[in-house]
């Protein structure tokens, strides 16, 4: 093999959090010491986070994985000849043959961890820009129809059909429209948006331009939470590169279409993941929820028709256009079409990102992919769908991960987060935390959420203290019903879900 060997060391924030920079520096130093020329590529993460820092070496047979590689493992890797795929205790063979990875169906994340995130030619060589090129030859209605036919639903959590939203915005009159990408991924247990922005930022930009072409918008905003500094940096750089390559301009590739994208940074408010709150925040205001209607597709940012979609929703549209709606809709189950990037988190042996068709069971995710708990203590519960999602006991793990099956079980899929708790978890404490979190993060606009969360926390405290249990359970039940029915948005409306599921499935934890 001529030239220098390519060595991949992720620059994903999760990999950095366990020493990827130190590992990369140690590899560079060791190669220099040995006078070997190598080319270190800082890729995104493959999503096998328990193996991070996951170092890959490009060999004629494919990329060979080593992990987790700490800086002080590097000398022994060189001694083992890892640059030609040599065996080592940290070796896992070909990356793409690792069962965790091989058993996934990667569509949205097809390039994440594979390419150099900020190399546009690498992006294009791996299928990037094909969707946008196609979209440039299509009428807006045709683009919307393709997205509708693909069955793509909003990946932020609500699962609203993307095509319907786009159609509404397309039909809305007005010369000025906006595409707003919701990258305020605040749900605990979720990190797919972050991984995608850090590992394949151009796919999001491509998706936003496609959305712009589809509805006649010329300006896009990406609202990224401030807790994601790495993603913010990568996206800002990606916008510059995409722009200088002509894909964001007043005349995209000379076809007379224009689009521009601005990055905006949140300021630590969970509620800004709610779309109307995010739009207020984008206008420089307090992120308070607004009453709907009007829906944003009719009257959104600055009162103009606005598409608000999650990172994953937008980043999935390029592949739908490139490969056709049918290709995408052939994955999935029932009305949940396509693939969902699930995120395995909490006390889990093999935590990370698993993108697979809807319909996989929770048990397969937790046990087959995840390998049970990291601590070795038996699994007791999973919280699916973020802090507003239900706690599911191990006996309920055979549920299929689709929007419909989860809802039928009193749970929700949300943004695809799966947080595993071991047997030591105190479910009364988790229920109390759900109320406390709502108290901390409520925007304060509506009373059921603002006051209900505080009262809910107090009532749970009384139950835990064994004060007038029957009455307090009744009060809590009333309160949960009121919050569900009368809150303005999902924050207050869904906080009862973790609370009531905890009581239902784990009554023994509530004293008495």
């Amino acid at each position, binding site marked *: 093999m001529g030239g220098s060997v390519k060595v991949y060391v992720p620059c994903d924030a999760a990999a950095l959090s366990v020493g990827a920079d130190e590992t990369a520096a140690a590899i560079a130093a060791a190669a220099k010491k040995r006078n070997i020329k190598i080319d270190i590529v800082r890729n995104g993460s493959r999503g096998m986070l328990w193996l991070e820092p996951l170092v890959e070496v490009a060999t004629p047979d494919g990329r060979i994985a080593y992990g987790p590689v700490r800086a002080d493992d590097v000398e022994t890797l060189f001694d083992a000849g890892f640059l030609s795929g040599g065996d080592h205790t940290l070796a896992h063979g070909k990356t793409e043959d690792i069962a965790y990875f091989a058993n996934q169906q990667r569509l949205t994340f097809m390039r994440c961890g594979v390419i150099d995130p900020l190399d546009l030619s690498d992006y294009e060589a791996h299928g990037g820009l094909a969707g946008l090129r196609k979209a440039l030859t299509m009428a807006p209605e045709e683009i919307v129809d393709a997205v509708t036919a693909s069955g793509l639903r909003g990946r932020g959590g609500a699962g609203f059909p993307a095509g319907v939203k786009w159609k509404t915005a397309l039909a809305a009159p007005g010369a000025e429209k906006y595409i707003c990408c919701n990258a305020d991924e605040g749900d605990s247990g979720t990190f797919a948006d972050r991984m995608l922005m850090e590992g394949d930022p151009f796919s999001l930009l491509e998706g936003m331009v496609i959305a712009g072409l589809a509805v006649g918008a010329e300006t896009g905003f990406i609202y990224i939470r401030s*807790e994601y500094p790495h993603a913010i940096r990568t996206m800002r750089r990606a916008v510059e590169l995409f722009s200088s390559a002509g894909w964001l301009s007043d005349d995209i590739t000379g076809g007379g279409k224009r689009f521009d994208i601005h990055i905006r*940074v*949140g300021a630590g408010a*969970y509620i800004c993941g709610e779309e109307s709150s995010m739009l207020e925040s984008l206008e420089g205001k307090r992120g308070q929820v607004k009453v709907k209607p009007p829906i944003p597709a009719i009257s959104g940012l600055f009162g103009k028709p606005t598409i608000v979609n999650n990172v994953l929703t937008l980043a999935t549209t390029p592949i739908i256009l490139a490969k056709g709606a049918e290709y995408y809709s052939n994955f999935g189950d029932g009305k949940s079409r396509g693939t969902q990037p699930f995120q395995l988190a909490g006390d889990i042996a093999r935590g990370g990102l698993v993108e697979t068709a809807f319909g996989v069971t929770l048990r397969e995710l937790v046990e087959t992919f995840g390998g049970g708990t990291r601590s070795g203590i038996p699994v007791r519960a999973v919280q699916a769908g973020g802090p507003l999602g239900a706690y599911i006991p191990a006996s309920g793990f055979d549920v299929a991960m689709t929007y419909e099956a989860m809802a039928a079980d009193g749970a929700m899929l949300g943004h695809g987060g799966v*947080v595993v708790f071991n047997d030591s978890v105190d479910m009364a404490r988790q229920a109390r*935390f759900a109320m406390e979190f709502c108290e901390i993060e409520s925007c304060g606009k509506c009373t059921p959420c603002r006051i209900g969360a505080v009262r809910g926390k107090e009532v749970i405290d009384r139950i835990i203290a064994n004060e007038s249990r029957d009455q307090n359970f009744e009060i809590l039940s009333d309160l949960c019903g009121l919050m569900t029915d009368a809150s303005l948005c999902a924050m207050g409306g869904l906080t009862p879900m973790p609370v009531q599921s905890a009581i239902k499935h784990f009554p023994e934890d509530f004293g008495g």
Partner: protein
Amino acid sequence: MVTLIDTSQEPLIREICDRHQNKPDELLEILHDIQATDGYISDGALKIVADALNISRAEAHGVVSFYHDFRRTAPPQATIKICRAEACQAVGSEELAHYAEATLNTKFGDAAEGADFGLKAVYCLGNCALGPAMMIDETLYGRVTPERFDAVCEDQRTNRRQ
């Protein structure tokens, strides 16, 4: 209320507002920039921003106070943000939080100006498979044990001495 403007600060704040074309919709960006420079949003800074953007001080204050990120008082030397959300709770973040409070002899919340370390609870840093997670400035740490916590604090102190 009379707010005295620090005249040495004014040109800088004006420059930041100008960089954002004095647009009210860029208020969050402006506040982030000011905080990155000054460490917090002072009364004087707030007044200048309100003036530059042609909004009321009350509106500007309403925005500053809504978001957890913005501070109205000078920060400690370093703020350690510990994730206290569910995925990290599942792997012992509450124990870490209590350990941090005990070793640093401080409570979560605003630490005094210039204090050695301040502790801030955050709800998710997006590192949910490698918790407990924490962040100092823009550096993210995963699988933080008490030992690693101590080592990171010690590194911070060493860096300051240099």
